[in-house]
């Protein structure tokens, strides 16, 4: 991490009754970074956010903000603001009163002129200057989301927490708001920490993504790294789509592995680290992105596979072909660009055999027992 950490979590543990939501989490967030906690519900991402916001207290461990220990501080004594999932706008106040709330509280009461100016600035920032006197009930979902942003940003916090900020919006609006969120982050230079279960949102917005699994951080890194080098089948499956195919680890040649699939086909030249604990003869799992599979006969160096076409799914710009390898239950998906289909004029028909191939660097290998 290039910059000074603004938030650190050291061995933070949190349990609810017998359920341990977080197991000794360690996390450092750099000043100005945009970090996303990604995972399915129950993975501990929201608990982590709530601990940083001060809405829950850690059972064990330490949380620091800008160098000082805030583990036991209540939310109103932390220089952090939150955009809540359902926005949590005060229904008995106008938009301007909502945004100005954080500047009128006793601990941080600003003079009237400053308040008015900063509220106007915050509303201008999110493009809602003309809605100041409305009530939240008179706004659309997207507008409420902006008010929630303005209300949190008006206090100029060191860290902005975003709890599934876009999940309540429809797809088109969500995509537009993603772009705005990214602009806002670049413009303000405030540290953003977001929680989401939407992997695309995480990839698009973040400098770094922490994928969480069962109360632990499964992997943290820049989006491209997570996408290209997922540390486990779980991460591979959660970030983007991945074909996970069972196989046997048959040989190791230098740093490269050779595996055999259930249909008898061999794949070689797969990179395997010494720390992965794979021995010859072990059950293994390979992961391949659908878009890295190419239709047609294999060029030199690539591994060739042949499978039966089960289905064709039209996605607009591309076709997704569902395939079944002999002897393997799980379906395999291959993406084919529409332009390439148009070139030779036909989509592979259901029931027909299809040849495809993968370049060795696009294949990842894991121990079979690491499967989530």
């Amino acid at each position, binding site marked *: 991490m290039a910059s000074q950490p603004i938030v650190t979590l050291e061995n933070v543990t949190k349990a609810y009754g017998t359920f341990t939501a977080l197991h000794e989490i360690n996390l450092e967030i750099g000043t100005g970074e945009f970090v996303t906690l990604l995972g399915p519900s129950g993975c501990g991402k929201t608990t982590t956010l709530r601990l940083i916001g*001060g809405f829950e207290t850690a059972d064990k461990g330490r949380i620091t903000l800008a160098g000082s220990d805030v583990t036991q501080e209540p939310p109103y004594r932390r220089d952090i603001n*939150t955009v809540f999932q359902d926005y949590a706008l005060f229904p008995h106040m106008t938009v301007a009163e909502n945004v100005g709330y*954080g500047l009128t*509280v006793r601990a941080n009461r600003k003079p009237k002129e400053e308040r008015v100016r900063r509220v106007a600035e915050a509303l201008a920032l999110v493009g809602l200057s003309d809605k100041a006197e409305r009530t939240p009930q008179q706004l659309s979902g997207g507008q409420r989301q902006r008010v929630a942003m303005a209300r949190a940003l008006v206090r100029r916090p060191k860290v902005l927490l975003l709890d599934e900020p876009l999940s309540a919006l429809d797809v088109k609006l969500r995509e537009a708001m993603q772009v705005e969120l990214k602009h806002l982050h670049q413009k303000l230079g405030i540290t953003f920490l977001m929680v989401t279960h939407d992997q695309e949102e995480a990839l698009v917005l973040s400098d770094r993504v922490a994928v969480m699994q069962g109360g632990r951080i499964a992997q943290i890194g820049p989006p491209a790294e997570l996408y290209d080098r997922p540390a486990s089948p779980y991460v591979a499956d959660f970030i983007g789509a991945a074909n996970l195919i069972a196989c046997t680890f048959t040989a190791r040649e230098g740093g490269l592995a050779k595996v055999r699939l259930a249909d008898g086909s061999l794949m070689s030249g797969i990179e395997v680290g010494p720390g992965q604990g794979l021995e010859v003869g072990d059950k293994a799992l390979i992961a391949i992105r659908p878009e890295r599979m190419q239709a047609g006969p294999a060029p030199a160096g690539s591994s060739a596979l042949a499978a039966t076409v089960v289905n064709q799914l039209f996605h607009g710009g591309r076709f997704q072909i569902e395939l079944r390898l002999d002897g393997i239950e799980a379906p395999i998906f291959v993406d084919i660009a529409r332009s390439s289909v148009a070139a030779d004029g036909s989509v592979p028909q259901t029931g027909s055999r299809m040849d495809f191939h993968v370049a060795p660097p696009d294949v990842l290998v894991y121990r079979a027992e690491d499967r989530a």
Partner: protein
Amino acid sequence: MKASTRKVVGFWLLFSLPLLWTVVFLLMPYGAMGMMSFWARKFPLFVPDFQWGNYVTLFSDPQYLTVILRTLKIAALVTVYSIALGYPLAYFLVFTVRSEKLRTILYMCVVVPLWVSYLLRAYTWKIILGTDGALNSALLWLNLIDAPLDIFLYNQAAMVITLTYIFIPFMVMPIFTALERIPPALIEASQDLGAGPFETFVRVIMPLSTAGVVAGATMTFCLSFGDFVAPVLVGGPSGTMVATVLQSQFGAALNWPLGSALAVIVFTLVLVVLQISSRLDRAGRVAMG
């Protein structure tokens, strides 16, 4: 049968009985009450008339005005005490009690007395506050007094205590509901923006529970204002309320026209209270969205 005919028949089958009920037992009695309030009394009978004499008597004879004002005062006191006791209780149940089960049990404890006869609950206070009642026994046992005191019963304080006890569930229920409807995220948002617990209470929780307080206050006030049992059981001579006077006009005093006029005034006052409350309530509802 034509569709329109069927509609008409269906309408009357469904609504004739409730409509008849409303007319016979609500509208006609109100009409009779209003009409009779203008009648004159010619002992031992009442004669139909249209004159304002009954109203003039009510407003000129200080005896009646005193009772009306006293009733208003007692109803207001009962309302204020019910809020003072009921609000913290509802707040405690919603925000302090963490366990859902315990909260339900405690809430039921508040509500269950409503299923016990109202008369019985009022009578209980006569036993507690009486000369040989529980309070005196306790004080005697503690050696705080030498002889039983008769100052607890048959006064306005006894009435306010009894009525507050009886009507407090009507205050707790709507406040409880209002507080329970406040999304916890709003409280967290307020704290997130720098407001401590007390400021959050004043600026977020209180405004959002106003509708519950208004509903509770309306019920408590109107019920105490028209109460008849408490003044008879624990009120004594200084605790006479409007309902007692009303009853005597139709009974011992045998002056139905005057009683009707008094009933019209009580009715009007209650309507005014309901009107005020519905205005406040509307404001509260706008706030809640």
